[in-house]
């Protein structure tokens, strides 16, 4: 067995940066031998070594810089970003997993309805959980990697960032000015899920079809191919605006002019998308009327050419679309109005002052 002092030196220096190992080792060796008589036995050596304490502790004292994965300077930011990212991405993935589970269950032929139900529950739970957990872990991992890279490259941990009192954020009005995080994350999840379903309908992964279970099974798309094609960019663009709105809300967490602008832009994009979609010349599949029994033919003849901006008022289905458009536009504009009100209403203190003046 090698000398106990050498073993101790090795165990200390192996924890140090390569360039320091030899020097620290030599220095410590000299110091340790200074503390020993010339003819020291192993017990005496061990007694001296014990005074130096555990190798990891001594190595820590020799370390010039504190070693952090995430330094205290950015730790709070790291934790708050981590929470948001993990819950948002985990939640979105969970929802997507559930939908994929449902699709999967539908995709398989099931003999009995009871078997079908167990399958659908099993598929949604396993898909949802595995995708949600996987995404949450991935999100946590990449957030951490991102922060480590940020810190190593920006020097945020070592250099005190320049700070001015003017940069301090305004104290949010309690409960009034704040945008609840859960609301923003929930909204984002709903947006992603609905956009995904809509896109899947459009590209035919999850088609909206009529099925005739007669002797010859006939499957017929509800919508016209051109209409579905036109929908895809409209859905994606309005989803991107929506996502930008929710990310702004998640980051800022209170009503500011920037958040208000994001809400207005997102709603206008949504309105434009709906107007664009409903102004397509053909919406429903041309073969649809032939698919239905003759007694329904008349009603669908109307729908066939149901286009709001092309003689809409001659056509009962067209009026339905007009009503849908009006509802969408009004609710979109109302949301913009609410955003403007919440952003620019006078703070509570001012209101009470005004009330005081009036009362006087």
């Amino acid at each position: 067995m090698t000398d106990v002092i050498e073993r101790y030196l090795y165990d200390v220096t192996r924890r140090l940066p390569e360039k320091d190992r030899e020097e620290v080792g030599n220095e410590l060796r000299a110091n340790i031998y200074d503390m020993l008589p010339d003819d020291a036995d192993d017990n005496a050596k061990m007694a001296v070594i014990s005074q130096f304490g555990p190798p990891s502790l001594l190595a820590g004292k020799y370390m010039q810089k504190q070693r952090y994965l995430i330094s205290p300077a950015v730790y709070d930011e790291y934790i708050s970003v981590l929470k948001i990212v993990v819950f948002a991405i985990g939640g979105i993935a969970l929802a997507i997993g559930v939908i994929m589970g449902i699709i999967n269950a539908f995709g398989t032929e099931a003999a009995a309805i009871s078997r079908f139900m167990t399958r659908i529950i099993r598929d949604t739970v396993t898909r949802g959980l595995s995708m949600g957990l996987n995404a949450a872990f991935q999100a946590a991992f990449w957030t951490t990697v991102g922060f480590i890279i940020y810190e190593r490259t920006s020097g945020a941990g070592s250099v005190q960032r320049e700070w001015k009192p003017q940069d301090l954020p305004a104290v949010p009005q309690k409960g009034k000015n704040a945008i609840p995080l859960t609301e923003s994350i929930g909204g984002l999840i709903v947006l992603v899920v609905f956009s995904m379903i809509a896109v899947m309908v459009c590209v035919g992964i999850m088609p909206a079809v009529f099925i005739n279970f007669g002797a010859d099974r006939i499957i017929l798309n509800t919508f016209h191919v051109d209409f579905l094609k036109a929908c895809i960019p409209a859905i994606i663009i309005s989803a991107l605006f929506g996502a930008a709105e929710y990310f702004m809300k998640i980051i800022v967490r209170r009503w500011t002019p920037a958040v208000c602008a994001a809400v207005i832009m997102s709603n206008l994009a949504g309105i434009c998308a709906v107007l664009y979609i409903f102004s397509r010349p053909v919406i429903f599949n041309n073969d649809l009327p032939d698919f239905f029994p003759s007694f329904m033919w008349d009603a669908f003849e109307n729908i066939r050419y149901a286009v709001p901006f092309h003689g809409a008022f001659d056509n009962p289905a067209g009026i339905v679309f007009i009503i849908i458009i009006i509802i969408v536009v009004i609710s979109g504009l109302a949301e913009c109005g609410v955003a403007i009100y919440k952003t620019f209403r006078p703070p509570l203190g001012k209101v009470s002052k005004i009330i005081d003046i009036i009362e006087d």
Partner: protein
Amino acid sequence: MPENEQVQSFVTELRRGSLMLAVLGCLDGPRYGYDLLQTLQSKGIDIEANTLYPLLRRLDSQEILVSVWDTSENRPRKYYAISEKGVKIYAELITEWEKMQKSIANICRRDEYYDRRN
């Protein structure tokens, strides 16, 4: 944390900054680690080997000390001495230390402190 442990951690904290002052004050000439340790301990400074040696190395890398290996004897030893920069820093620190001592003495005189409390 038990009270005496808490006291101990406060004492360690108080002592931490002054150790450097004690080390610089002891370095009237080149000295090797163990020699310095014994001197400090004999003057009542409660410092351990595993604190002093890393401290010496840090001061060396900060160019407050200079070091040289003496290999003339059968066992090599590393000698530390105060650098020019170290001398200046030491003078400033001592001034600061004296100021602080006075202020603390003014505020924390034992008898007065207990008088005021009662």
